[in-house]
Protein backbone atom coordinates (compact mmCIF):
# COMPACT_ATOMS: atom_id res chain seq x y z
CA UNK A 1 0.00 0.00 0.00
CA UNK A 2 2.71 2.42 1.02
CA UNK A 3 4.95 1.38 -1.87
CA UNK A 4 2.05 1.97 -4.23
CA UNK A 5 1.63 5.48 -2.86
CA UNK A 6 5.36 6.16 -3.18
CA UNK A 7 5.33 5.02 -6.80
CA UNK A 8 2.33 7.25 -7.52
CA UNK A 9 4.07 10.21 -5.90
CA UNK A 10 7.31 9.65 -7.81
CA UNK A 11 5.36 9.35 -11.07
CA UNK A 12 3.60 12.62 -10.27
CA UNK A 13 6.90 14.40 -9.67
CA UNK A 14 8.35 12.90 -12.85
CA UNK A 15 5.31 14.26 -14.67
CA UNK A 16 5.30 17.69 -13.06
CA UNK A 17 8.95 18.71 -13.36
CA UNK A 18 9.18 18.28 -17.18
CA UNK A 19 5.74 19.88 -17.37
CA UNK A 20 7.10 22.96 -15.63
CA UNK A 21 9.98 23.07 -18.13
CA UNK A 22 7.48 22.93 -20.97
CA UNK A 23 5.29 25.59 -19.38
CA UNK A 24 8.26 27.86 -18.78
CA UNK A 25 9.37 27.57 -22.40
CA UNK A 26 5.78 28.00 -23.61
CA UNK A 27 5.29 31.10 -21.48
CA UNK A 28 8.45 32.76 -22.80
CA UNK A 29 7.62 31.96 -26.41
CA UNK A 30 3.97 33.04 -26.11
CA UNK A 31 5.11 36.26 -24.42
CA UNK A 32 7.64 36.90 -27.16
CA UNK A 33 5.23 36.33 -30.04
CA UNK A 34 2.55 38.48 -28.43
CA UNK A 35 5.06 41.30 -27.97
CA UNK A 36 6.34 40.90 -31.56
CA UNK A 37 9.65 39.44 -30.43
CA UNK A 38 11.44 36.18 -31.19
CA UNK A 39 11.98 34.93 -27.64
CA UNK A 40 14.69 32.48 -26.57
CA UNK A 41 16.47 31.09 -29.63
CA UNK A 42 20.12 30.49 -28.73
CA UNK A 43 20.21 27.41 -26.47
CA UNK A 44 19.21 24.29 -28.34
CA UNK A 45 16.97 24.19 -31.41
CA UNK A 46 14.60 27.20 -31.26
CA UNK A 47 15.74 27.83 -27.68
CA UNK A 48 14.09 24.70 -26.29
CA UNK A 49 16.91 24.05 -23.83
CA UNK A 50 16.84 27.57 -22.39
CA UNK A 51 14.84 26.50 -19.34
CA UNK A 52 17.32 23.66 -18.63
CA UNK A 53 20.14 26.22 -18.74
CA UNK A 54 18.23 28.50 -16.36
CA UNK A 55 17.62 25.61 -13.97
CA UNK A 56 21.31 24.67 -13.97
CA UNK A 57 22.12 28.31 -13.26
CA UNK A 58 19.70 28.35 -10.31
CA UNK A 59 21.17 25.06 -9.01
CA UNK A 60 24.65 26.59 -8.79
CA UNK A 61 23.51 29.78 -7.08
CA UNK A 62 23.92 30.33 -3.39
CA UNK A 63 20.71 29.89 -1.40
CA UNK A 64 21.09 32.99 0.71
CA UNK A 65 19.18 33.38 3.99
CA UNK A 66 19.00 37.01 5.23
CA UNK A 67 20.56 37.34 8.67
CA UNK A 68 17.58 39.23 10.15
CA UNK A 69 15.01 36.78 8.85
CA UNK A 70 13.09 34.13 10.73
CA UNK A 71 15.26 31.32 9.44
CA UNK A 72 12.94 28.39 10.14
CA UNK A 73 9.88 29.93 8.45
CA UNK A 74 12.02 31.38 5.67
CA UNK A 75 13.32 27.96 4.72
CA UNK A 76 9.98 26.25 5.25
CA UNK A 77 7.88 28.57 3.03
CA UNK A 78 9.04 27.29 -0.40
CA UNK A 79 8.32 23.71 0.66
CA UNK A 80 4.83 24.64 1.87
CA UNK A 81 4.18 26.26 -1.51
CA UNK A 82 5.28 23.23 -3.52
CA UNK A 83 3.59 20.72 -1.22
CA UNK A 84 0.24 22.52 -1.32
CA UNK A 85 0.30 22.78 -5.09
CA UNK A 86 1.23 19.10 -5.43
CA UNK A 87 -1.46 17.96 -2.96
CA UNK A 88 -4.11 19.37 -5.26
CA UNK A 89 -3.07 16.85 -7.91
CA UNK A 90 -4.37 13.92 -5.81
CA UNK A 91 -8.01 13.78 -6.98
CA UNK A 92 -7.24 15.04 -10.51
CA UNK A 93 -8.43 12.75 -13.33
CA UNK A 94 -5.62 12.70 -15.89
CA UNK A 95 -7.15 10.09 -18.18
CA UNK A 96 -9.81 7.41 -18.19
CA UNK A 97 -9.24 5.52 -14.93
CA UNK A 98 -6.01 7.38 -14.15
CA UNK A 99 -6.62 9.09 -10.84
CA UNK A 100 -4.47 8.90 -7.73
CA UNK A 101 -7.31 9.14 -5.23
CA UNK A 102 -10.95 9.28 -6.33
CA UNK A 103 -12.41 10.54 -3.07
CA UNK A 104 -16.08 11.45 -2.74
CA UNK A 105 -15.36 15.12 -1.87
CA UNK A 106 -12.80 15.66 -4.65
CA UNK A 107 -13.69 19.16 -5.74
CA UNK A 108 -14.19 20.38 -2.16
CA UNK A 109 -10.73 19.00 -1.33
CA UNK A 110 -9.24 20.87 -4.29
CA UNK A 111 -10.75 24.21 -3.29
CA UNK A 112 -9.74 23.85 0.35
CA UNK A 113 -6.15 22.76 -0.36
CA UNK A 114 -5.51 25.33 -3.08
CA UNK A 115 -6.47 28.16 -0.70
CA UNK A 116 -3.70 26.98 1.62
CA UNK A 117 -1.05 28.29 -0.76
CA UNK A 118 -1.63 31.76 0.73
CA UNK A 119 -0.12 30.45 3.97
CA UNK A 120 3.13 29.76 2.13
CA UNK A 121 3.07 33.22 0.58
CA UNK A 122 2.36 34.93 3.92
CA UNK A 123 5.07 32.84 5.55
CA UNK A 124 7.61 33.86 2.91
CA UNK A 125 6.65 37.52 3.09
CA UNK A 126 6.60 37.66 6.88
CA UNK A 127 9.85 35.81 7.55
CA UNK A 128 11.92 37.69 4.95
CA UNK A 129 12.26 40.84 7.10
CA UNK A 130 11.75 42.98 4.03
CA UNK A 131 9.06 45.60 3.52
CA UNK A 132 8.47 44.64 -0.10
CA UNK A 133 8.00 41.00 0.79
CA UNK A 134 5.55 41.84 3.54
CA UNK A 135 3.53 44.20 1.32
CA UNK A 136 3.34 41.58 -1.43
CA UNK A 137 2.27 38.88 1.00
CA UNK A 138 -0.44 41.07 2.55
CA UNK A 139 -1.80 41.98 -0.86
CA UNK A 140 -1.83 38.34 -1.81
CA UNK A 141 -3.75 37.51 1.34
CA UNK A 142 -6.47 40.08 0.60
CA UNK A 143 -6.61 38.91 -2.99
CA UNK A 144 -6.91 35.18 -2.38
CA UNK A 145 -9.43 35.55 0.45
CA UNK A 146 -11.76 37.56 -1.80
CA UNK A 147 -11.36 35.62 -5.04
CA UNK A 148 -11.87 32.32 -3.26
CA UNK A 149 -15.58 33.24 -3.06
CA UNK A 150 -16.19 33.56 -6.79
CA UNK A 151 -14.19 30.41 -7.48
CA UNK A 152 -16.32 28.55 -4.97
CA UNK A 153 -19.57 29.88 -6.41
CA UNK A 154 -18.62 29.04 -9.97
CA UNK A 155 -17.58 25.52 -8.93
CA UNK A 156 -20.93 25.20 -7.13
CA UNK A 157 -22.81 25.78 -10.41
CA UNK A 158 -21.26 22.61 -11.82
CA UNK A 159 -21.78 20.73 -8.56
CA UNK A 160 -25.49 21.68 -8.68
CA UNK A 161 -25.80 20.40 -12.23
CA UNK A 162 -23.86 17.19 -11.53
CA UNK A 163 -25.18 16.52 -8.03
CA UNK A 164 -21.82 15.15 -6.90
CA UNK A 165 -18.49 16.40 -5.55
CA UNK A 166 -16.61 13.36 -6.87
CA UNK A 167 -14.34 14.22 -9.82
CA UNK A 168 -15.08 11.01 -11.69
CA UNK A 169 -18.85 11.64 -11.42
CA UNK A 170 -18.37 15.17 -12.74
CA UNK A 171 -16.42 13.87 -15.74
CA UNK A 172 -18.89 11.04 -16.43
CA UNK A 173 -21.84 13.44 -16.29
CA UNK A 174 -20.40 15.12 -19.39
CA UNK A 175 -20.40 11.98 -21.51
CA UNK A 176 -23.20 13.39 -23.69
CA UNK A 177 -21.68 16.85 -24.05
CA UNK A 178 -19.54 19.19 -22.00
CA UNK A 179 -21.18 21.42 -19.42
CA UNK A 180 -20.01 24.52 -21.25
CA UNK A 181 -22.31 23.53 -24.14
CA UNK A 182 -25.04 21.78 -22.17
CA UNK A 183 -25.59 24.39 -19.48
CA UNK A 184 -26.57 27.41 -21.61
CA UNK A 185 -25.41 30.96 -20.81
CA UNK A 186 -25.21 30.67 -16.97
CA UNK A 187 -22.50 28.00 -17.25
CA UNK A 188 -20.60 30.10 -19.79
CA UNK A 189 -20.74 33.03 -17.35
CA UNK A 190 -19.49 30.87 -14.50
CA UNK A 191 -16.72 29.54 -16.80
CA UNK A 192 -15.54 33.09 -17.49
CA UNK A 193 -15.75 33.96 -13.80
CA UNK A 194 -13.83 30.82 -12.92
CA UNK A 195 -11.02 31.64 -15.37
CA UNK A 196 -10.76 35.24 -14.13
CA UNK A 197 -10.90 34.31 -10.45
CA UNK A 198 -8.43 31.45 -10.78
CA UNK A 199 -6.01 33.76 -12.60
CA UNK A 200 -6.23 35.91 -9.46
CA UNK A 201 -5.95 32.89 -7.19
CA UNK A 202 -2.67 31.74 -8.75
CA UNK A 203 -1.24 35.30 -8.61
CA UNK A 204 -0.68 35.73 -12.32
CA UNK A 205 -0.86 38.98 -14.26
CA UNK A 206 -3.12 41.01 -14.48
CA UNK A 207 -3.59 40.06 -10.81
CA UNK A 208 0.09 39.61 -9.87
CA UNK A 209 0.03 42.28 -7.16
CA UNK A 210 1.78 39.90 -4.82
CA UNK A 211 4.98 40.13 -6.86
CA UNK A 212 4.37 43.33 -8.88
CA UNK A 213 7.90 43.65 -10.28
CA UNK A 214 7.72 47.38 -10.93
CA UNK A 215 6.58 48.33 -7.42
CA UNK A 216 7.79 45.56 -5.11
CA UNK A 217 10.85 44.16 -6.97
CA UNK A 218 9.58 40.58 -6.65
CA UNK A 219 7.04 40.81 -3.84
CA UNK A 220 6.96 37.94 -1.42
CA UNK A 221 9.97 36.12 -2.90
CA UNK A 222 12.28 39.15 -3.10
CA UNK A 223 14.77 37.66 -0.63
CA UNK A 224 14.83 34.17 -2.10
CA UNK A 225 17.59 32.93 -4.37
CA UNK A 226 18.89 29.74 -5.89
CA UNK A 227 16.80 26.59 -5.55
CA UNK A 228 14.46 28.13 -2.99
CA UNK A 229 13.48 30.69 -5.61
CA UNK A 230 13.16 27.88 -8.17
CA UNK A 231 10.68 26.14 -5.90
CA UNK A 232 8.45 29.23 -5.91
CA UNK A 233 8.66 29.20 -9.69
CA UNK A 234 7.85 25.48 -9.73
CA UNK A 235 4.80 25.94 -7.52
CA UNK A 236 3.65 28.87 -9.66
CA UNK A 237 3.64 26.71 -12.78
CA UNK A 238 2.06 23.75 -11.01
CA UNK A 239 -0.67 26.09 -9.77
CA UNK A 240 -1.19 27.31 -13.32
CA UNK A 241 -1.55 23.72 -14.52
CA UNK A 242 -3.87 22.85 -11.63
CA UNK A 243 -6.17 25.82 -12.19
CA UNK A 244 -6.41 25.05 -15.90
CA UNK A 245 -6.95 21.35 -15.22
CA UNK A 246 -9.82 22.11 -12.84
CA UNK A 247 -11.41 24.44 -15.39
CA UNK A 248 -11.01 21.73 -18.05
CA UNK A 249 -12.49 19.07 -15.77
CA UNK A 250 -15.49 21.09 -14.67
CA UNK A 251 -16.47 22.88 -17.84
CA UNK A 252 -14.77 21.08 -20.74
CA UNK A 253 -15.28 17.49 -19.65
CA UNK A 254 -11.84 16.54 -18.30
CA UNK A 255 -10.65 13.46 -20.18
CA UNK A 256 -14.08 12.99 -21.78
CA UNK A 257 -13.82 13.18 -25.58
CA UNK A 258 -16.00 15.61 -27.48
CA UNK A 259 -19.40 13.93 -27.56
CA UNK A 260 -22.62 15.25 -29.06
CA UNK A 261 -25.77 13.78 -27.52
CA UNK A 262 -26.74 10.56 -29.29
CA UNK A 263 -24.61 10.75 -32.42
CA UNK A 264 -23.20 7.27 -31.77
CA UNK A 265 -20.82 7.04 -34.75
CA UNK A 266 -19.44 10.55 -34.21
CA UNK A 267 -18.85 9.77 -30.53
CA UNK A 268 -17.04 6.55 -31.44
CA UNK A 269 -14.73 8.43 -33.81
CA UNK A 270 -13.94 10.89 -31.03
CA UNK A 271 -13.23 7.99 -28.66
CA UNK A 272 -10.33 6.94 -30.90
CA UNK A 273 -8.28 9.88 -29.58
CA UNK A 274 -6.82 8.78 -26.21
CA UNK A 275 -8.46 10.36 -23.18
CA UNK A 276 -5.11 11.61 -21.81
CA UNK A 277 -4.62 13.65 -24.99
CA UNK A 278 -8.09 15.16 -24.56
CA UNK A 279 -7.27 16.11 -20.98
CA UNK A 280 -3.86 17.62 -21.80
CA UNK A 281 -5.23 19.37 -24.88
CA UNK A 282 -8.01 21.08 -22.98
CA UNK A 283 -5.70 21.96 -20.11
CA UNK A 284 -3.12 23.49 -22.43
CA UNK A 285 -5.85 25.41 -24.23
CA UNK A 286 -6.87 27.05 -20.95
CA UNK A 287 -3.21 27.59 -19.96
CA UNK A 288 -2.79 29.40 -23.27
CA UNK A 289 -5.80 31.60 -22.54
CA UNK A 290 -4.41 32.50 -19.10
CA UNK A 291 -1.02 33.31 -20.70
CA UNK A 292 -2.88 35.39 -23.28
CA UNK A 293 -4.41 37.37 -20.39
CA UNK A 294 -1.01 37.88 -18.85
CA UNK A 295 0.64 39.34 -21.93
CA UNK A 296 -2.31 41.54 -22.90
CA UNK A 297 -3.73 43.18 -19.80
CA UNK A 298 -2.09 45.75 -17.53
CA UNK A 299 -1.94 45.05 -13.81
CA UNK A 300 -4.83 46.19 -11.61
CA UNK A 301 -4.37 48.42 -8.58
CA UNK A 302 -5.34 46.98 -5.19
CA UNK A 303 -8.58 48.98 -5.02
CA UNK A 304 -9.51 48.02 -8.58
CA UNK A 305 -8.78 44.39 -7.74
CA UNK A 306 -11.10 44.39 -4.75
CA UNK A 307 -13.76 46.40 -6.64
CA UNK A 308 -13.75 43.83 -9.43
CA UNK A 309 -14.35 41.01 -6.98
CA UNK A 310 -16.83 42.52 -4.54
CA UNK A 311 -18.80 44.75 -6.93
CA UNK A 312 -18.83 42.65 -10.08
CA UNK A 313 -17.75 39.01 -9.90
CA UNK A 314 -19.41 38.14 -6.59
CA UNK A 315 -22.92 39.61 -7.26
CA UNK A 316 -22.90 38.21 -10.79
CA UNK A 317 -21.90 34.74 -9.64
CA UNK A 318 -24.53 34.80 -6.88
CA UNK A 319 -27.30 35.58 -9.38
CA UNK A 320 -25.72 33.02 -11.68
CA UNK A 321 -25.95 30.28 -9.04
CA UNK A 322 -29.68 31.04 -8.69
CA UNK A 323 -30.15 30.74 -12.46
CA UNK A 324 -28.24 27.46 -12.60
CA UNK A 325 -30.28 26.10 -9.71
CA UNK A 326 -33.43 26.97 -11.65
CA UNK A 327 -32.05 25.22 -14.73
CA UNK A 328 -31.08 22.16 -12.70
CA UNK A 329 -34.48 21.90 -10.94
CA UNK A 330 -36.48 22.36 -14.13
CA UNK A 331 -34.17 20.03 -16.06
CA UNK A 332 -33.60 22.56 -18.86
CA UNK A 333 -30.07 21.41 -19.58
CA UNK A 334 -29.43 18.83 -22.27
Amino acid sequence: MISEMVIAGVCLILFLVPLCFILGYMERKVAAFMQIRLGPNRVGPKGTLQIIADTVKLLFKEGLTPSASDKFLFNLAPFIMVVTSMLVMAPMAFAKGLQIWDMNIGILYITSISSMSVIGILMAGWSSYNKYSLLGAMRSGAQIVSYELSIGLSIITIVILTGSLRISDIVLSQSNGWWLFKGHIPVIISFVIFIVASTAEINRAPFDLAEAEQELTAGFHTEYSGMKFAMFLLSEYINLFVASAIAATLFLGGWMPFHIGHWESFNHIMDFIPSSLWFLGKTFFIIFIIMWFRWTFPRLRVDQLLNLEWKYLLPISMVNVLLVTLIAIMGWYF
Partner: protein
Amino acid sequence: MFLKEYFGTIYKSVKSLLQGMKLTGYYFTHPKEIQTWEYPDNRATLKMADRFRGEVVMPHDENNEHRCTGCQACEIACPNGTIKIITKQELNAEGKKKKAIDTFVYHLELCTMCNLCVVACPSDAIVMAQTFEHSVYDKKTLKKTLNKPGSKIMEGVE
Protein backbone atom coordinates in the same frame (compact mmCIF):
# COMPACT_ATOMS: atom_id res chain seq x y z
CA MET B 1 -30.71 53.66 -13.98
CA PHE B 2 -28.14 52.13 -11.65
CA LEU B 3 -28.45 48.75 -13.36
CA LYS B 4 -28.01 50.36 -16.78
CA GLU B 5 -24.79 52.01 -15.63
CA TYR B 6 -23.63 48.78 -13.97
CA PHE B 7 -24.09 46.62 -17.04
CA GLY B 8 -22.79 49.42 -19.27
CA THR B 9 -19.51 49.37 -17.32
CA ILE B 10 -19.28 45.59 -17.68
CA TYR B 11 -20.01 45.77 -21.40
CA LYS B 12 -17.45 48.51 -22.02
CA SER B 13 -14.70 46.86 -20.02
CA VAL B 14 -15.24 43.42 -21.55
CA LYS B 15 -15.28 44.99 -25.00
CA SER B 16 -11.99 46.83 -24.45
CA LEU B 17 -10.36 43.72 -22.95
CA LEU B 18 -11.43 41.64 -25.96
CA GLN B 19 -10.07 44.35 -28.26
CA GLY B 20 -6.69 44.04 -26.58
CA MET B 21 -6.77 40.25 -26.79
CA LYS B 22 -7.66 40.50 -30.46
CA LEU B 23 -4.52 42.56 -31.13
CA THR B 24 -2.16 40.28 -29.21
CA GLY B 25 -3.88 37.27 -30.76
CA TYR B 26 -3.22 38.77 -34.18
CA TYR B 27 0.47 39.23 -33.34
CA PHE B 28 0.65 35.67 -31.99
CA THR B 29 -0.77 34.15 -35.17
CA HIS B 30 1.23 36.36 -37.56
CA PRO B 31 4.97 35.70 -36.99
CA LYS B 32 5.85 37.93 -39.95
CA GLU B 33 5.01 40.94 -37.76
CA ILE B 34 8.02 40.17 -35.54
CA GLN B 35 10.25 43.23 -35.28
CA THR B 36 13.39 41.71 -33.75
CA TRP B 37 16.12 39.66 -35.41
CA GLU B 38 18.02 36.60 -34.41
CA TYR B 39 21.63 37.20 -33.44
CA PRO B 40 23.52 37.66 -36.75
CA ASP B 41 25.43 34.40 -37.19
CA ASN B 42 25.11 34.66 -40.99
CA ARG B 43 28.13 36.92 -41.38
CA ALA B 44 28.59 36.20 -45.10
CA THR B 45 25.09 37.21 -46.13
CA LEU B 46 24.51 39.75 -43.38
CA LYS B 47 22.92 42.99 -44.57
CA MET B 48 22.82 45.62 -41.84
CA ALA B 49 20.21 48.37 -41.84
CA ASP B 50 21.45 51.68 -43.32
CA ARG B 51 20.75 53.60 -40.15
CA PHE B 52 22.73 51.20 -37.94
CA ARG B 53 25.61 52.97 -36.17
CA GLY B 54 28.40 50.85 -34.75
CA GLU B 55 31.38 53.12 -34.14
CA VAL B 56 33.09 56.20 -35.59
CA VAL B 57 35.80 55.43 -38.13
CA MET B 58 37.97 57.56 -40.38
CA PRO B 59 38.17 56.21 -43.94
CA HIS B 60 41.63 56.21 -45.53
CA ASP B 61 42.25 55.80 -49.24
CA GLU B 62 44.88 53.58 -50.82
CA ASN B 63 47.65 56.22 -50.38
CA ASN B 64 47.01 56.22 -46.62
CA GLU B 65 45.37 59.63 -46.84
CA HIS B 66 42.39 60.87 -44.86
CA ARG B 67 40.19 63.95 -45.15
CA CYS B 68 40.53 65.31 -41.61
CA THR B 69 41.77 68.90 -41.41
CA GLY B 70 41.90 68.99 -37.62
CA CYS B 71 39.25 71.71 -37.35
CA GLN B 72 37.90 70.11 -34.15
CA ALA B 73 34.26 70.72 -35.10
CA CYS B 74 33.47 67.12 -34.13
CA GLU B 75 35.18 67.53 -30.77
CA ILE B 76 32.99 70.57 -30.02
CA ALA B 77 29.86 68.83 -31.30
CA CYS B 78 30.32 65.74 -29.15
CA PRO B 79 28.00 65.97 -26.11
CA ASN B 80 30.08 63.76 -23.82
CA GLY B 81 33.71 64.31 -24.75
CA THR B 82 34.21 61.18 -26.78
CA ILE B 83 36.59 62.74 -29.29
CA LYS B 84 39.93 64.38 -28.51
CA ILE B 85 41.98 65.80 -31.38
CA ILE B 86 45.66 66.58 -30.87
CA THR B 87 46.89 68.90 -33.60
CA LYS B 88 50.35 69.81 -34.84
CA GLN B 89 51.80 72.42 -37.18
CA GLU B 90 53.03 71.05 -40.47
CA LEU B 91 54.90 72.63 -43.37
CA ASN B 92 53.11 72.23 -46.66
CA ALA B 93 54.66 72.13 -50.14
CA GLU B 94 55.01 75.93 -50.35
CA GLY B 95 56.82 76.05 -47.03
CA LYS B 96 53.85 77.56 -45.16
CA LYS B 97 52.84 76.39 -41.69
CA LYS B 98 49.54 74.56 -41.66
CA LYS B 99 47.42 72.90 -38.97
CA ALA B 100 47.13 69.13 -39.23
CA ILE B 101 46.08 66.28 -36.94
CA ASP B 102 48.60 64.39 -34.90
CA THR B 103 46.24 61.93 -33.23
CA PHE B 104 42.48 61.58 -33.48
CA VAL B 105 41.56 59.94 -30.16
CA TYR B 106 38.14 58.29 -29.98
CA HIS B 107 36.73 56.80 -26.76
CA LEU B 108 34.30 54.10 -27.81
CA GLU B 109 33.38 53.45 -24.17
CA LEU B 110 31.93 56.99 -23.91
CA CYS B 111 30.23 57.10 -27.30
CA THR B 112 26.44 56.96 -27.52
CA MET B 113 26.37 56.71 -31.35
CA CYS B 114 24.41 59.98 -31.60
CA ASN B 115 25.97 60.79 -34.99
CA LEU B 116 26.44 64.50 -34.13
CA CYS B 117 30.18 64.43 -34.94
CA VAL B 118 29.54 63.01 -38.40
CA VAL B 119 26.95 65.71 -39.05
CA ALA B 120 29.27 68.44 -37.76
CA CYS B 121 32.26 67.44 -39.91
CA PRO B 122 32.67 69.96 -42.77
CA SER B 123 34.95 67.73 -44.85
CA ASP B 124 33.26 64.31 -44.40
CA ALA B 125 36.35 62.88 -42.75
CA ILE B 126 34.55 60.56 -40.31
CA VAL B 127 31.67 58.16 -40.86
CA MET B 128 29.74 55.66 -38.79
CA ALA B 129 30.82 52.05 -39.36
CA GLN B 130 28.39 49.14 -39.16
CA THR B 131 30.48 46.97 -36.87
CA PHE B 132 29.14 45.43 -33.68
CA GLU B 133 30.41 43.06 -30.93
CA HIS B 134 32.42 45.77 -29.19
CA SER B 135 32.66 44.03 -25.82
CA VAL B 136 36.21 43.51 -24.51
CA TYR B 137 37.84 42.35 -21.29
CA ASP B 138 40.07 45.42 -20.92
CA LYS B 139 38.48 48.86 -20.99
CA LYS B 140 41.72 50.47 -22.23
CA THR B 141 41.40 48.80 -25.62
CA LEU B 142 38.28 50.87 -26.29
CA LYS B 143 40.39 54.05 -26.54
CA LYS B 144 41.15 54.17 -30.24
CA THR B 145 43.30 56.29 -32.54
CA LEU B 146 41.39 56.78 -35.73
CA ASN B 147 44.11 58.13 -38.05
CA LYS B 148 46.47 55.40 -39.18
CA PRO B 149 50.18 55.83 -38.44
CA GLY B 150 51.99 57.82 -41.12
CA SER B 151 48.79 59.00 -42.75
CA LYS B 152 48.41 62.53 -44.05
CA ILE B 153 45.65 64.76 -45.32
CA MET B 154 44.31 64.27 -48.81
CA GLU B 155 45.18 66.82 -51.52
CA GLY B 156 42.59 69.55 -51.97
CA VAL B 157 40.81 69.10 -48.67
CA GLU B 158 40.76 72.40 -46.82
